[in-house]
């Protein structure tokens, strides 16, 4: 009989080993799944995890890694602030869309004027769009105690409808012969989030993601707010006594995570995606939840987890085109990763003890 015995303190070693263990188990089970689908498991795993970084065409895929990881890291950093304090913003996908709409809206409003201030204005608008969308569940929770999980999630569906409306209406390209979708911002230099160093994949979103990582690291190690967030997550009552205002903390966390998701959306629409369209959002907001947990809600961990998940996205696309592996398999793969992480995590807080059955 295996029994769980609570550790007096969470194990440091296991909190680092758990994500690694989860990745290995996911590879094994994922490989088995690919075998069931009739694909060579070793080749599939190699295509997903090895080839994009070390394979023949790695020179092309490595920059892509940063392009895909940047929005994931940016969003996950924001989510981790709230998650640590027990504030569950799971509507980042909606905030991402609203940031993109606001940012692109500002850029398109200036079209075809060329000026240096347009892009910075778009950045501010993008952050504001996400912030405002995140503040809706924030204010409702702070003011009425409404469940932020459900409200932020409902707002994703609202944002998706708004995105469709904008792509077909207000923001539609007037020269687009009636096709849905806005003008391509990549062809509008003042609004284009171009590569900073050609061929590296580094655009302003990557820079913003790195700044966010450093910012979050400093916040958690040096700043009172970071301490308050940690304290609220671990002992809400003690936090109240220590003078933490829960309503204020809710507003800050949801606002900040909304703003970061909005930024991610804005950098995406003005850079890699190029235009507002009905299928503009590709689930970064949800994948970022996995990134946040896999990164242990720690800034550096999130950086690594973001790169890993970006790798599964790129590798997954390769496996789709080269091996005919269904795209949905990768989505499931990512869900599995979170599953196994949560399961292995038991070892962080509990010790396994082998015991013979007790006499009642």
């Amino acid at each position, binding site marked *: 009989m295996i029994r769980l015995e609570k550790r007096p303190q969470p194990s440091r070693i296991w909190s680092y080993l758990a994500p690694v263990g989860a990745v290995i188990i996911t590879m094994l089970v994922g490989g088995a799944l690919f075998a069931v689908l009739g694909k060579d498991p070793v080749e599939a795993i190699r295509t997903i995890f090895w080839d994009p970084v070390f394979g023949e065409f790695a020179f092309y895929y490595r920059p892509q890694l940063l392009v895909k990881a940047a929005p994931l890291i940016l969003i996950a950093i924001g989510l981790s602030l709230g998650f640590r304090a027990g504030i569950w913003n799971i509507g980042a996908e909606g905030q991402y869309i609203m940031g993109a709409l606001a940012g692109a809206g500002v850029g398109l409003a200036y079209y075809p004027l060329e000026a240096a201030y347009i892009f910075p204005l778009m950045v501010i608008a993008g952050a504001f769009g996400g912030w405002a969308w995140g503040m809706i569940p924030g204010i*409702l929770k702070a003011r009425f105690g409404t469940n932020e999980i*459900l409200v932020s999630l409902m707002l994703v569906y609202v944002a998706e409808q708004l995105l469709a409306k904008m792509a077909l209406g207000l923001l539609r390209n007037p020269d687009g012969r009636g096709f849905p979708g806005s003008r391509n911002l990549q062809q509008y230099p003042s609004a284009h989030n171009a590569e900073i160093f050609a061929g590296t994949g580094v655009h302003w979103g990557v820079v913003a993601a790195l700044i966010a990582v450093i910012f979050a690291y400093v916040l958690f190690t040096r700043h009172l707010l970071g301490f308050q967030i940690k304290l609220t997550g671990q002992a809400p009552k003690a936090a109240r006594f220590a003078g933490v205002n829960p309503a204020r903390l809710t507003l800050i966390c949801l606002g900040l995570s909304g703003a970061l998701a909005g930024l991610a959306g804005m950098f995406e629409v003005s850079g890699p995606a190029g235009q507002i369209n009905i299928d503009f959002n590709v689930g970064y907001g949800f994948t970022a939840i996995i990134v946040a947990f896999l990164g242990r809600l720690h800034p550096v961990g999130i950086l690594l987890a973001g790169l890993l998940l970006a790798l599964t996205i790129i590798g997954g696309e390769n496996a789709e085109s080269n091996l005919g592996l269904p795209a*949905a398999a990768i989505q499931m793969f990512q869900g599995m990763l979170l599953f196994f992480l949560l399961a292995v995590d038991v070892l962080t807080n509990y010790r396994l003890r082998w015991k013979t059955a007790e006499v009642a």
Partner: protein
Amino acid sequence: MDLSSINPTLLLASLIVASTPILLAALGELVVERAGVLNLGVEGMMITGAICGFAIAVNTGSPFVGFIAAAMGGATLAFLFAILTQFTLANQVASGLALTLFGLGLSALLGQGYQGIKPPATASLDIPILSDLPVLGPILFSHDLMVYLALALVAAVWFVLNRTRAGLILRAVGENHGAAHALGYKVIRIRILAILFGGACAGLGGAYLSLVRVPQWTEGMTAGSGWIALALVVFASWKAGRVLLGAWLFGGISVLQLNLQAAGVAIPVEYLSMSPYLITILVLVIMSADKSRAPGSLGRTFHASD
């Protein structure tokens, strides 16, 4: 715009059909939450049920077998949640999210090749004489078996929770798991059973979507129904009877907005489509004033050593 094209009788009849998926899912979640467990994976279990039911119904030609498969599919996914939260003591919020993300991927994978197929028709159960009644007949007595099953389930859940010993134990486990454990009740075992029941119900709700309401398979077809079901439990203040009222309210809104779309109301389609979600938020705000009804141990991890 032609509002006269909306037939109130048909509207009410389709309201009952539209409310059945969220009614089933919410009823299952109600039992789970009454046992003190917060399973946010309803959306994932629903969509898994939707594809399991659809695939099996298409392959066997029998919607009935499809519904059974859907319940089993939902319960299987729920079992994963039970392992995570009850054995490895993982955070329930995170596990529920994992379940939804996993379920969405799994269903998309299983659903490859089922797009654009028509499922076998679920026979409507025209109750003789009663279904011939004017107005009331089409509204109440000419639905398929699942509609009546869902209604019977509301009564059964109410009865079991409030009038039986098993229900009393389940509620005790949900209100205070420490005390229930001290009294010798098997907290973990009871919770696992509740979670499995919740999964089966969510699976049935999903299958009702793909086999009757829509009826076809498209990726991500639940489109937030599972989350609305979760909101419904809050709306119902964890009471079975009120879940039915809430389901009718949301069913009514979604049917009405579809009817308004068809009637060509001046409001753009997208704004009409977001109305069920906006109303869910509104209802949550109104209901959030009263938190006293939530089960005491809701969302807390139980370990005998604590």
